[in-house]
Every structure is written in C-alpha cells, then in structure tokens.
C-alpha cells in the first residue's frame, strides 16, 4: 500500500493544508526580534553609559520585559528622557511593554538602557527577562565613538 492509500494520508493532508491556511510557519519565528542595537561606550568621568535598540514583538500578545541584566555591567536599568517646557528630565521605567505585533524603540532622547559601571568588555551581552523567564539575550560590541 502506498502512503496515499493509507489511513494516515487524509489527516496528514488536512494538517498540512491547515498549516498553510493558518500560517503555521509563523510559529517558528522568534517572538521578540532585536534590531538597531547601539551600545555606547562609557565616557571618561562617567559611571554609566546608554544603550539603544528596537524590540519587535511578532506575536499576537503583549510582551513585558520586567528586568534586564548583564554580566558585563554592575546593573542595567531602563530610563526615559524627555524635554518638556524646556526642562530635560530622566525617569526610571519599571517595565517595558511591547504591544502585540508592534515595535518598541529605545532611541536617543527617549527610552534607553542605562548600563552602570561597565567592566570594559568590548563585546557585551544583555539578558531580557519577564519575571523569572529569560526572553532574549542580545549581544553587541560597544560603539567606541559617539555618533548622533
């Protein structure tokens, strides 16, 4: 008996067709994609530096990042800069929410990672957590010259 004539053929065919229709291929995409990573070097006189990146949520549900850690920095915080009525401010951000099917940008003048006390490594790794769950590890080399 060929496969076509077996009892398995109809259900497998149905599954294959439903995968095509429902886009099962998307389930193999990572839920969180990182791009435009820019980790600044710590400047003379400073005890911290800024990191910028874009986080894209490819899923249909919001993703929350509650904590960022790194073996290459004493600690990592998230802050948001703003200029309102001519006054520059910076405030801590307790969690990053990346809404379903959208991207969140950490860019100069806005939200950014505050990377405390670098250990001087050229290539750094950052771990993004939702509670105890590690969602993502990002690696980058440190930008040695500040650019706009």
């Amino acid at each position, binding site marked *: 008996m060929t496969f076509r004539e077996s009892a398995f053929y109809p259900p497998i065919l149905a599954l294959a067709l439903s995968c095509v229709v429902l886009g099962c291929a998307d389930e193999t995409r990572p839920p969180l994609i990182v791009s435009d990573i820019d980790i*600044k070097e710590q*400047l*003379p*006189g*400073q*005890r*911290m*530096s*800024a990191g910028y990146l874009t986080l894209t949520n490819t899923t249909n549900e919001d993703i929350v990042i509650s904590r960022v850690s790194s073996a290459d920095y004493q600690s990592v*915080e998230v*802050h948001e*800069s703003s*200029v309102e009525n*001519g*006054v*520059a*401010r*910076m*405030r801590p951000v307790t969690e990053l929410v990346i809404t379903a099917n959208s991207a969140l940008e950490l860019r*100069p*003048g806005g939200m*950014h990672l*505050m*990377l*405390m006390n670098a250990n001087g490594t050229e290539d750094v790794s950052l771990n993004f957590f939702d509670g105890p769950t590690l969602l993502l590890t990002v690696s980058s080399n440190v930008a040695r010259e*500040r*650019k*706009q």
Partner: protein
Amino acid sequence: MNSKNLLIALLIGAGIAAGLFVATKMKAPTQPQFATMLTQANALPDFSLLDQKGNPVNADTFRGQWDLVFFGFAHCPDICPITLQTLSNAKRALIDSGARVIPRIVLVSVDPERDTPDILGKYVAYFGDDNLAVTGDLEQLRRLTSALGIYFEKIASDNENYAVDHSAAVLVIDPNGQFSALFGAPHAIENYLHDFPIIVATQ
C-alpha cells in the same frame, strides 16, 4: 522745467532708487531662525566657581570670546552627551564652513556634588579640545543659574544614581561677557551653523 533739468532730475531719481535697491539687498543678515535673541543683553551676576583645572571662574571668564553654555552633568547617559556631541559637531561645521568666529563650548555642572573639576574635565575633553568645564559650590551655582533663568533640581533617589532635572537650553554669551541669545532644545547642528554667524554679525 526744461528738458535738461528734467533729465538731471530723472538721473538723480534713478540713482537714489538704485542705491536703495542695492542697500536693501545688502542690509544686515536675516534674523536667526532657531535661536532667540534677547531684546537686551544681560550681564552675568557676581559668582565664583571653578574650571576643570581648579582655576577660578567668574563673570570675567566669559569675556573675550563667544561661548555656548550648556547646563548638564556627567552622570547623565543620554541627553547631556547628545547635546555636547551636537555642540561639538556644530563647532566643527562652523570651522569647516570658514566662519570667522568660532564659539567655545562650556559645560556648567548642575550636579556639583558628584561632578568634581577632575571628573568634569575628563568628560568635556572627550567632546573636543578647548572646552570649558565649570563646577563648584552649590550656592554659587544657584547665583549664576537664577540670574540666567536656568532651572535645575536634584531628584530624590534611594541610591547614588540620582537624576537632575535641568533646563535644556544652550545660552550664548558674547565677548562682553553678556548673555545675548539662546538656543532651545531640540538641538541640531544646522541650527547653530545657520544662526551663530547671524548672532555674531548682529552685535
């Protein structure tokens, strides 16, 4: 009036018209597009701070050159480095454009508690040569900022990594040591490249 006098009158009239036309084309440069000129330049108050070498800084320090003065602090990872980099790039752009007058960049710390002269000096040196760093006694700093309309406030934190809110403007101090114009945020190289020569020419 005979035809000869009429001709002379017409020629004089044409000469005046031509002169006015040329004069309007050659008049003082246009107004700044991004910076705000003060209607009356303000003298700096009496104050006493320090530069990165520990030398005294007072109102006289700001005489003799044009200064672009930014109030920020070294423990600021985002807005302050960005602003200083923009000013540094703007200075470079002015030099490259052949501008006659090039400003000095000055960082006055709104966080004298953490920004010692040594720390601030290393920090401003990163952004180019000949930058001036100013820090010192908090009360002396307040004398300077309140006279210039600059706001700053330390934001309470449970650790040593506190933030300081501060005005985002860059002040222009002229060679007479007077506050004569300001650039508001957001700061862009083009704003300075376009307006700084106009501000200089207006004086």
